[in-house]
């Protein structure tokens, strides 16, 4: 399908008052404040424009969009002139024609006349507009001043900047500021000397540019253009799909020339991203065709053998035989599966179905185990559903934003930009994080409060904030009385008001000054709409689940639930964390978060699937690995996940994998886990998938096949084939049928179908009879569980403490340009920004150890050690070190421990006691 997005010139306006006017004789009614340009576009009156685009505020610089308004002198610009009641506007008159032609003549007098050979030929607004105004000749001397010899900046790996083609419309500069919020670009100079510029003395690569592509997107000419378009030509067809990186779930239009992907363009209609993108989704898709891709199935008897390329049939039969044999020898529960948050809902659903129905066990878990399982647990306990409460757009209504253990500008950049936009407008910001993340202070953004806590003391800090709210009398009594379970509130209130939960009592534990906690609590409680956003810095702790409930308590106590601008919102790591959880990947839950012991739910699945399902939970990933080491668990199907790199205490993971008789890895690349696999099943990149992803705001987005699967088979098809070979056929004609089954069996998905998604773009679950178009904000009238449940949240210190031997606390995170274990991003040009994992260490800690900036160091914990280079940083406090885990060579998870969340076993990645020593030489 090819959908050309119309550009209405200026952003939509929401206003209570409507005004009616006439444009070129056509009547129209629009919200007050709407520009004449937008209104004209809505009646299909074509007003030429160059500096205007509906993703940016009106600017009024190009002067092509001049119109006449009856009764008013002059020719105002339609982009900056708002509609007024009773106006009569003429957009096409001889006078306007002449003016527009005159303006265009000026533009072209300083532009290369190389349309036919220009890489944007056919995709250039300047070219279009010159045609639209009917410019035939340029009367100015071709010897006049010009910029035709201005140079090119090719430093960015993905796009070029050709200044000779620039018309100085400032769209790129405005996009970088308004949309992305990075402010890497400016206009330098003035008058005729005005030019788009990065900071003094920098090219694009050395500038603050984060390569989000907003400038390229905004550029109406070939000035800022994707190198892929220059190389491959202007695209000829388009397919709308969804990015497969982070949990924001941006909608993109994949633009192809023939069957070759030319570029990915963010979709303005995208519910999650509204036309914005980041460097990963926009540009880092080259891995999909990387030479490392494995496209044929492979098997081997032992992991010491070489791989043998085989046909699909042989591989599938080999897998089924091995699994069956294990079950025969060691029992039904000796095998299991792991689903992946990178796969579609449909792919995940069939894997868990295969495990439950074909394997006959509940030993299925998902990689969300190691990231957001505490979110599911905590929000279900308190609110009644395992999901974030808001849509992303909600942040636009927040007055105070509380960011805890998340780094949106790096890990969720497109949402980060939305948040920054709201912050620039004046929302107050509280950051609770050991690190001074970008949001704490970056151009035009600053946190009013940064509670720089000691890693592992989240619960203590949020308890202290809640203590202040309760003891200062800032509880939203009406909300609590009407919406929450009052008994549980009273118990919580008594608990939280205890002196031991006061900021003063906890100051030494948390390292956060009591006064700062009190001020932050006041801001959150009193600013108006308080919204909490959090990430893995909350969940990946021994008290991850407790912390999620502590935040939910705080939000309920202050009445910050159930309307736009508030809520408790997990920022999901991978594209389909929400979906993989929704699809019944947890060993204790069916799709839609129904416990396996729930007889009615089980009966429903029993009858639909024609099997008798088990009513007690299966093993979680760490249980499986422990059981493998114990010799009781011997076969594993791993869908698109690299547990030998991404899971904690790698030595333990490797021991478990080695102990198994059958490890099946389904992936794009021969990953670390595949070193221990017996069967390798080539997977599909997101460009080859047909299905849906569900993002962090519960938004179900379509993933459409852009190119056919390189392996010749869909991933769900492979799963179904194995299931069939195991004796349980799962005959689906296509992915849509899988979704139909999900909808039929899952009340929150009852209204979802590919047909609906193709029609409306996306919906947020619950989507059913009560909410046929989905639910942007949850718990509006009542909580899903009825009344909001307060849960007491005692602070229990982690066992992982700094000791004399391991005096530093290591915490980990992500960086913008790389993604998780880097399997994808490391196979793109993104490595120019982050070629290796680096340890951030405070200058005092470095000095005490004789470590200088850039030195190689050895970092060791009680379970292992690794080497990397050090960077002296003032973004972290003394006593804390920080690194990313994107590169297998640095093996960060060699040193993370088995500690995990008490309720969900989510690993405690964020706290590891370590020591750092200078080290000679590179690598391991």
């Amino acid at each position, binding site marked *: 399908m090819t959908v050309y997005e119309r550009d209405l010139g200026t952003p939509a306006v929401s206003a209570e008052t409507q005004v009616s006017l006439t444009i070129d004789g056509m009547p129209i009614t629009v919200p007050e404040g709407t520009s004449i340009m937008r209104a004209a576009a809505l009646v299909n009156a074509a007003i030429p424009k160059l500096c205007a685009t509906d993703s940016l505020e009106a600017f*009024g610089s190009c002067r092509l969009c001049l119109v006449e308004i009856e009764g008013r002198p002059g020719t105002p610009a339609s982009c900056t002139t708002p509609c007024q009641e009773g106006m009569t506007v003429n957009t096409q008159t001889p006078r306007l024609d002449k003016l527009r032609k*005159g303006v265009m003549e000026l533009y072209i007098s300083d532009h290369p006349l190389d349309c036919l050979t220009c890489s944007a030929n056919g995709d250039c607004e300047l070219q279009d507009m010159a045609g639209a105004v009917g410019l035939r000749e340029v009367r100015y001397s071709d010897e006049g001043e010009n910029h035709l010899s201005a140079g090119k900046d090719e430093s960015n790996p993905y796009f070029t900047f050709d200044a000779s083609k620039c018309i100085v419309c400032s769209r790129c500069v405005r996009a970088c500021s308004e949309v992305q919020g990075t402010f890497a670009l400016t206009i330098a100079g003035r008058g005729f000397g*005005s030019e788009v510029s990065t900071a003094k003395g920098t090219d694009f690569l050395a500038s603050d540019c984060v390569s989000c592509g907003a400038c390229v997107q905004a550029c109406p000419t070939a000035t800022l253009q994707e190198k892929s378009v220059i190389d491959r030509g202007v695209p000829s067809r388009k397919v709308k799909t969804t990015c497969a990186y982070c949990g924001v779930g941006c909608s993109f239009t994949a633009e192809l020339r023939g069957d070759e992907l030319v570029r990915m363009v963010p979709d303005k209609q995208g519910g999650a991203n509204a036309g914005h993108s980041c460097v990963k989704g926009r540009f880092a898709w080259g891995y999909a065709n990387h030479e490392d891709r494995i496209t044929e199935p492979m098997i081997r008897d032992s992991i010491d053998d070489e791989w043998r390329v085989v046909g699909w049939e042989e591989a599938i039969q080999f897998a089924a035989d091995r699994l069956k044999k294990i079950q025969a020898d060691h029992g039904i529960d000796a095998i299991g599966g792991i689903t992946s948050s990178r796969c579609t809902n449909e792919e995940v659903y069939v894997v868990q179905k295969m495990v439950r129905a074909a394997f006959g066990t509940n030993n299925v878990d998902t990689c969300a185990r190691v990231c957001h399982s505490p979110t599911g647990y905590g929000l279900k306990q308190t609110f009644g559903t395992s999901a974030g409460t808001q849509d992303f757009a909600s942040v636009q209504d927040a007055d105070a934003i509380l960011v805890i253990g998340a780094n949106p500008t790096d890990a969720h950049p497109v949402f980060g930009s939305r948040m920054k936009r709201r912050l620039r407008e004046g929302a107050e910001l509280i950051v609770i994080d050991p690190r001074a993340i970008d949001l704490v202070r970056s151009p035009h953004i600053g946190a009013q409060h940064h509670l720089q806590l000691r890693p592992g003391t989240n619960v203590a800090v949020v308890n202290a904030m809640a203590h202040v709210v309760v003891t200062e009398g800032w509880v939203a009594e009406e909300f609590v009385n009407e919406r929450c379970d009052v008994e549980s509130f009273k118990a919580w209130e008594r608990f939280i008001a205890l002196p031991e939960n006061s900021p003063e009592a906890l100051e030494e534990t948390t390292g956060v000054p009591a006064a700062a906690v009190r001020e932050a609590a006041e801001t959150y409680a009193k600013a108006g709409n308080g919204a909490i956003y959090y990430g893995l810095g909350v969940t990946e702790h021994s008290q991850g689940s407790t912390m999620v409930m502590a935040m939910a308590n705080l939000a309920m106590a202050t009445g910050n639930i159930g309307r736009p601008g508030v809520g408790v919102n997990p920022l999901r790591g991978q594209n389909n964390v929400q979906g993989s959880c929704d699809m019944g990947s947890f060993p204790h839950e069916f799709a839609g978060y129904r416990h396996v012991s729930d007889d009615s739910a089980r009966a429903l699945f029993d009858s639909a699937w024609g099997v008798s399902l088990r009513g007690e939970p299966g093993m979680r990933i760490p249980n499986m690995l422990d059981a493998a080491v114990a010799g009781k668990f011997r076969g594993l199907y791993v869908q698109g996940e690299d547990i030998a790199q991404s899971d904690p205490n790698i030595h333990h993971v490797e021991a478990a994998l080695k102990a198994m008789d059958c490890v099946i890895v389904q992936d794009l690349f021969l990953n670390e886990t595949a070193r221990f696999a017996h069967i390798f099943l080539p997977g599909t990149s997101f460009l080859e998938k047909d299905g849906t992803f569900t993002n962090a705001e519960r938004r179900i987005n379509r993933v459409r096949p852009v190119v056919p699967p390189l392996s010749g088979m869909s991933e769900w098809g492979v799963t179904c084939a194995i299931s069939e070979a195991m004796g349980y056929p799962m005959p689906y004609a296509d992915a849509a049928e899988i979704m139909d089954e999900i909808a039929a069996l899952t009340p929150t998905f009852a209204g979802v179908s590919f047909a609906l998604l193709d029609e409306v773009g996306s919906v947020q679950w619950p989507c059913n009879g009560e909410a046929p178009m989905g639910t942007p904000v949850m718990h509006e009238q009542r909580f899903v569980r009825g009344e909001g449940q307060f849960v007491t949240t005692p602070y229990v210190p982690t066992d992982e403490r700094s000791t004399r031997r391991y005096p530093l606390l290591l915490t980990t995170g992500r960086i913008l340009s790389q993604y998780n274990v880097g399997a994808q991003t490391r196979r793109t040009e993104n490595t120019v920004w982050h070629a290796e994992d680096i340890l951030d260490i405070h200058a005092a800690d470095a000095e005490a150890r004789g470590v200088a900036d850039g030195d190689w160091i050895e970092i060791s914990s009680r379970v292992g050690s690794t080497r990397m280079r050090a960077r002296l940083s003032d973004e972290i406090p003394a006593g804390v070190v920080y690194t990313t885990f994107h590169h297998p060579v640095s093996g960060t998870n060699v040193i993370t421990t088995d500690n995990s969340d008490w309720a969900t076993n989510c690993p405690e990645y964020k706290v590891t006691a370590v020591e750092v020593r200078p080290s000679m030489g590179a690598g391991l």
Partner: protein
Amino acid sequence: MTVWFVPRDAAAKSMGADGIASALLARGEEVIRTGSRGMLWLEPLVECASERNGSRVGWSNVTVADVNEDRLDTDHPAYLGEVDLLTYLSRQQRWIYERVGIIDPLDPQDFQHHGGLAGLKAAMAMAPADVLEAVKTSGLRGRGGAGFPAGIKWQTVADQEPQPLRGQPSRATRHKFICVNADEGDSGTFADRMLMEGDPFSLLEGMAIAAYAVGADRGMIYLRSEYPEAWDILCGAIEAARSEGWLGESVLGSNFAFDVEVRLGAGSYVCGEETAMLESLEGRRGMVRAKPPLPAIKGLFGVPTVINNVLTIASVPGILARGAEAYAALGCERSRGTQVFQLAGNIAQGGIVEMAFGVSARELVEDFGGGTLSGRPVKAVQIGGPLGAYIPPDQLDVPMAYEALADAGAMLGHGGLVVFDDSADMAEQARFAMECCAEESCGKCTPCRIGAVRGVEVIDRLRQGDNIETQTLLLRDLCDVMKQGSLCAMGGLTPNPVLSALDHFAEDFR
């Protein structure tokens, strides 16, 4: 005891006033530094009185030698007699400039003794709404060029709620601003400078009245950096006004809080345009903003803002002190009150002439100005600054008033008249207008950014005699695009001098 009065006005200083003051001080005389009387061809004009507030006699073009050799007596050829009686001054109707040249600009007592502060006191005895009414009744219009009624602008600001500064939380302190545009960049104008250097308190008083009327709490003066003397004096005046309690938390002991900050421009003509000025005051590139929103609704840092020119604000204390009707009684048609005309360029008697609207350009150039400095015939007078039209001598009878000038295809602008004698090459002047626009364009809108450069090039070709008819047509088309298509007055008015030169002095283009 004899008191000497020596101006510290920048123009007087440019002719050596400081040397005279030093010489007098060296002789042990009491010297009071004042503003300039505005008869600039007489500078340094030194005055003397037997007591501080006595009548003053003066000498023109005084030299250090005159002082050192004790020649300043009634026999001196440059002896002027009683200065107030000089026709140039006595014919004027000084309202804004009544104290300029008379008082020590930084002496609060001197200011009050000569009627200062009466306006603010009168205003604060009234309800803010009545102050607004008075300003409306007076018929005062903006002196920056556009001539918008000040009272209506103030009313718009008064009608807005104060707002937190852009980007600040809704819980932050809310403000409204009074901004004074003192970026007097037009060639041929210097009345703002002389007022600020001669009577800065009147400006602060006017700002305080405006603030009281509209409910503003902060004032900003945007002063061009080319005026270092005015900067020193304004800074001193603000400090003095604070210590007098005229500014600050409690203006004149009341609950009304208002304070003023002065900021310097940095060499950009377009920052005289009000929205570019706001950008510059916010510390950014001086790029013109599209309107709406009007600055009265979203102005400095996004909050409701009154923007007035120096002379507009300085007119206000008198309106409150002497009554709106007295002000409205001056002038003609919808141009009420007085205008401070500035006679400049090739003129024998250049300086300040404050008269009620309606005086003719000819009276100003010939009667006050005494014709050209060179003694040659007047060829053209550019009225209203660099963006004003060049008027040939036969059209000089036009009354100096908003409507009359507009009818004559000219504009009042900031009230400056620049005289050229018959040696001027008007094609060169037309080219210069384009060149200046190219040099000073903010670069935002296309007609100004590219058009001005092309304008220079087309005029060059015209002057080379290259295809005159085509190039003339192209120039007129270009002027049309700039006039109707530009975002702000700079690009929009640059065609004025160009087309007037082309229309009235076509022979200069061959």
